[in-house]
Structure formats: structure tokens, C-alpha cells
């Protein structure tokens, strides 16, 4: 029985392993959105807590959600959870200190 090697292009002896692309050498490959949103979320959380601004705290919650939606699978969930918790606590603290509803900007 002859095996027609010409027809089968597969070569098990020519296998190379997958190497994830090195994002240090080419930073344009990485999407900066989750990192920016994370940072923005923390900044708004701190503003909301310190300056007792409710809308800051709400924006912080949105930022942490957006950061989560855009994050890479390899990223640490601890970081995500901590920014999320921070923004939720900013909202809660704002309402505990001042239970009045938010006034619209108009």
C-alpha cells in the first residue's frame, strides 16, 4: 500500500508551537481601553467619595463596567473586582451621607 504524500500537505514533523505575540515590542497591538477605564473609574470614585458628588460615583460605576467589558481574558479579575467594589462603595457612601436624590444638571 503506497501512501500518496504529495496529496497530503500535512507534516507532523514540522510543527511549531503557538507563541503569544510579544506586546512589549509592539505596543500598538494592545487595546488601552480597559486600562484607561479602570484608571478613570478609580479617579471618579475618589472624587465621589472625597467631594461627596453623587454623579461622580455613578460615572465610576459605569467606568468599571466598561473596563470589565473590554478586558482581556488573561487579565487579573482581582483588579477588576477591586475597581468595581470601589465604585459601588463610592455610590453607597454618597447616599448614606446625603440621602437626597441627585439633581439633574439642567
Amino acid at each position, binding site marked *: 500500500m503506497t501512501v500518496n504524500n504529495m496529496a*497530503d*500537505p*500535512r*507534516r*507532523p*514533523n*514540522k*510543527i*511549531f*508551537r*503557538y*507563541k*503569544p505575540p510579544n506586546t512589549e515590542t*509592539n505596543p*500598538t497591538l494592545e487595546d488601552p481601553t480597559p486600562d484607561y477605564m479602570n484608571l478613570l473609574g478609580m479617579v471618579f470614585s475618589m472624587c465621589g467619595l472625597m467631594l461627596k458628588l453623587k454623579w461622580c460615583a*455613578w460615572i465610576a*460605576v*459605569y467606568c468599571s*463596567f*466598561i473596563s470589565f*467589558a*473590554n*478586558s*482581556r*481574558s*488573561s487579565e487579573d479579575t482581582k483588579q477588576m473586582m477591586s475597581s468595581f467594589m470601589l465604585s459601588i462603595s463610592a455610590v453607597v457612601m454618597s447616599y448614606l451621607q446625603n*440621602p*437626597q*436624590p*441627585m*439633581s*439633574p444638571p439642567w
Partner: protein
Amino acid sequence: GRGTEINRGKSPVIQDVPAHLQNSWESYYMEILMVTGLLAYIMNYIIGKNKNSRLAQAWFNSHRELLESNFALVGDDGTSKEATSTGKLNQENEHIYNLWCSGRVCCEGMLIQLKFLKRQDLLNVLARMMRPACDQVQVKVTLNDEDMDTFVFAVGSRKAMARLQKEMQDLSEFCGDKPKSGAKYGVPESLSILSEMGEVTDGVMDNKMVHYLTSHADKIESIHFSDQFSGPKVMQEEGQPLKLPETKKTLLFTFNVPGMGNTSPKDMDSLLPLMNMVIYSIDKVKKLRLNREGKQKADRNRARVEENFLKQTHTQRQEAAQTRREEKKRAEKERIMNEEDPDRQRRLEEAAQRREQKKLEKKQMKMKQIKVKAM
């Protein structure tokens, strides 16, 4: 009592009760709006990520047979000890999936990236209502040295060619002429060609290739064959020692998924002929060899690019060498100063002085020789 005395005769005044004392939900309408927005975001996240996941799976199901009949390894995440096919896509995040295939003649391996739209991010969904975009499939085939001759070539949509000519290191260096209209080679006018030399274009654009390009022109964003591929131009930082970027023989295909975002899983089948084109290209590039004249031209081009690079970085490399020399001298001087034994110190100083003197004499000799030669 006193209260009733004061209020006698005055009609009751209706005061507004402050909002937080009102026990109605209506006053919290901003908060309700916020929470509703968050719920909408979460709903969109779940729906969007599921859609992307289904599209990825549909793509893989329709391409699996072709890939498994061409590659010994289909699917690898690089972490397992043994090189066995995982038979599934790697998920990078909720909108990017990749697949690594290897173990075939004529190439090292093929990395396929399914770059879907960020359907899981409501902000992105809203942004796309104003600026429509489409899902993309990017295929990068890396080749061994013997799998490809030396040439640089690209074909794709006019916009993509204009952009890549500016952005890509190799296309800007080797394909300096304006992109040529595809109509000259029998493909639709919407496609343009960048090529290192005419022989390359004639070699690549055979009947089968022209047929593929014509039938699927709407789905082709760019096709880039290069032995000098190093990716986009990198901005060099100040003070960094400059080296020629590392190159790898590569075939890079970028395809647009039809539907402009309104894609359904069965649209993935329409991409299968494009994967056939990729496989055909791999085998074709292996056989495509420049004739003697073409090879000489190609070698000259590569030598020219390298020379230009060396010239540009000449001053920088000289400066770097100068700073290195000064550093060495300073380090030596410090060593001499730190030497505690005064005798040894004197001896080291004298040795350094003698070395300096010798260097000076050598230089003077050289200058004399040059002067004599010039005369």
C-alpha cells in the same frame, strides 16, 4: 396656647416638603435612570458576548475541515507540554478569538485572528451607529527561508493600500511607487496593487489569483506578501541604539466579514473560499522564483535599504561609541583615584598616561599617511 394665638387670622401657607422627606420614588428618577442604564449595559454585554461567541464557533465549524486536512496541528494555546491539536479557538477577550495552525509543507505556521466588533460594550455599539464598521478575519502565515523568494507585494482596497504604504515598514521602503489600479491586471478597479517590481506582480497575479480577487473583492481589505515583513513602522525613542528591525517572511491577509456588523453565523461560510485562496497562496509563493535579473534587482534593493539605514544611524552610532569610550575613561580614572596604595596609584597613572601617548602617536602617524597619500 401660644401657637394658636400667632396663627389666628393668618391663612395656612403651603410649604414645599424637602425632597428627601417625601416618601415617593418619583424624586429619585435620576437614580432610577442610572440603574436602568446599568441594567441595559449588562443585558447588552450578555447578548453581545454570546453573539460573538456564536459567530466564532460558526466560523470554526465551517473552516474546520479545510484546516484539519491542511495542518497537522489545528489549535494550540502554547501551554500544554505535548503539541496536540486542541481543536478549538483561543479566546483573547469577548471580541477577539485566535487559532494557531502548524505542521504543513511550505510554511511554519498560520495564525488566524477573528477580530469581531465589540458587541459586548454598549458604548461601542452606540458609537458604531454613527460610524459603521465590520468584523474582520486576519490570517498571518509565517514562512521559513526556503518557502519564499525575496519580494514585497500587496493588493487590497484603495484606501487600505494607501494607508499600508504609509504605515508598513517594508511597503514604504520597497514599494515606493503609487498604488496601481487593479484594472490593469484584470481585477476590479476598487483594488490597488503595491509591488516591488513588475515581475513580482505578473508572478503573483495568475489566473486563479485574479479569479479569487475578482469574485471576492468586496471581502478583501488587504493581502500582503513580504520577505522583509517587520510590521508597522516603529517610533524610535530618543537615545535608543538603532538596529534594523527584525524581519520574517510573512503572508498577511485581512478580510472583511460581509454584513457590516449585521452578521449572522451563516455569513461565515462565505469566507471559506478566502481560506482556500490563502492555502493556494502558500503553495504558490513556494514555487514563485524570480529570474536572474529580478533577483539581482531585489538584492540591490535590499542592500540599498540597509545602506540608507546605516547612513541615517551613522551619527547616532558614532555618538553612542563616543559616550562608551568616555565612560570607560571615567571608570578607569575612578579606579585610579580609589586605589589606596599611593605606589600602585602612581604606577596605574603612569600606565594610563603611556597608553594615551601611544594612542596619540598612532593617530598622528595615520594623519601623516593620509596627507602623503593625498599628495
